């Protein structure tokens, strides 16, 4: 079935606010909330000249590989965390990442094929702190994901 394009940035804003809630809960968590091994995360930084020099496809892949990495990293966090309040926030964040992928699909952004391993991905780095991971999650959504949605071709003609 043809999906209607989700161009409304309030949807992303809701995901950002929930990601921020997870970050806050993590900051106040004292026990059972650490990563058992380091995880690979995407770069969140945006230098506008560099971003604008990328093609739409490069921008999309940058975002999609980042979303995929965050999904892997949060799943790994989910298994090492024992704090139940955090569990529900992490579960929710993972589901929201899947929903963001669905939003990208609705904008006709080409489907992303995840690599066999995180090793070959450019510009990634590793963190071993759960707090850092959740902060990177928020910064990635606020930055690159929002920029990609703002510029999405599918939302340019349709001003609704």
């Amino acid at each position, binding site marked *: 079935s043809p999906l209607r394009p989700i161009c409304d940035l309030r949807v992303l804003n809701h995901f950002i606010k929930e990601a921020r809630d997870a970050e806050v809960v993590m900051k106040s968590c004292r026990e059972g909330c650490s990563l058992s091994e380091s995880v690979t995360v995407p770069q969140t930084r945006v230098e506008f000249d560099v971003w604008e020099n990328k093609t739409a496809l490069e921008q999309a892949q940058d975002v999609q590989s980042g979303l995929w990495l965050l999904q892997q990293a949060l799943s790994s966090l989910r298994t090492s965390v024992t704090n139940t309040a955090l569990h529900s926030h992490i579960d929710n964040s993972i*589901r929201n990442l899947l*929903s963001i992928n669905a939003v990208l699909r609705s904008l006709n952004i080409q489907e992303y094929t995840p690599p066999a391993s995180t090793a070959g991905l450019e510009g990634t780095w590793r963190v071993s702190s759960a707090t850092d991971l959740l902060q990177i999650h928020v910064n990635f959504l606020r930055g690159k994901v929002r920029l990609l949605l703002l510029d999405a071709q599918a939302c340019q003609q349709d001003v609704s």
Partner: protein
Amino acid sequence: ARGFEKKVSMLLKEEPENPKCFAEGRKDFTCFWVEDEERAGSVDQYTFTYTYQNENSSRCPLRALPAAGGKRLFVCHLNRTQMFVQMDIQVQRDRTLIHNRSLLIELVFLLDPPANVTASSTGQQGQLNVSWVPPPLKYMDDSMMYEVSYTTADSHMWQVEVAGASSELILRGLQPGTKYKVRVRVKLDGISYSGYWSAWSDPVFMET
């Protein structure tokens, strides 16, 4: 529970498809259908299967409840959901498909009515200030819309005003010195989230 029964009866009227489904928040989802008590099977004869696009199928456990008019209600409730992803639903009885439906959860919100509806004077003639508390749907109050309906206390000709993402509305052009009855209902605004109109709040009364 009272709210659930009301929602069931509203959807039985409004939604032709089966199972009938609704979301009350960002993390819950309920589906149900009814059968005649006489012809209905026992709950373990049925399976409710849902499949998000690109994922494996899952089962939602069913409960059976007695319902008005000699009916039996079969209910499945999920407390984790995914929005913006198509969900395919299949209901089987003894391995025979009886219901089949595809939907997007973010399009089937059915909220509780706005709470704490109050009407007060604005100090200006022929005006009433109506305010309410949006349903507690975290962060989504910016995507809700409302209908405020009002009538003089002895009439049944309701007038309707529409409000966007707001929690108050000023009614203007009312008859001075008259008692009015006011009620409010809510729904998602239809841009990214959508759904059904909630039930009307209980009416409040106020003189202009």
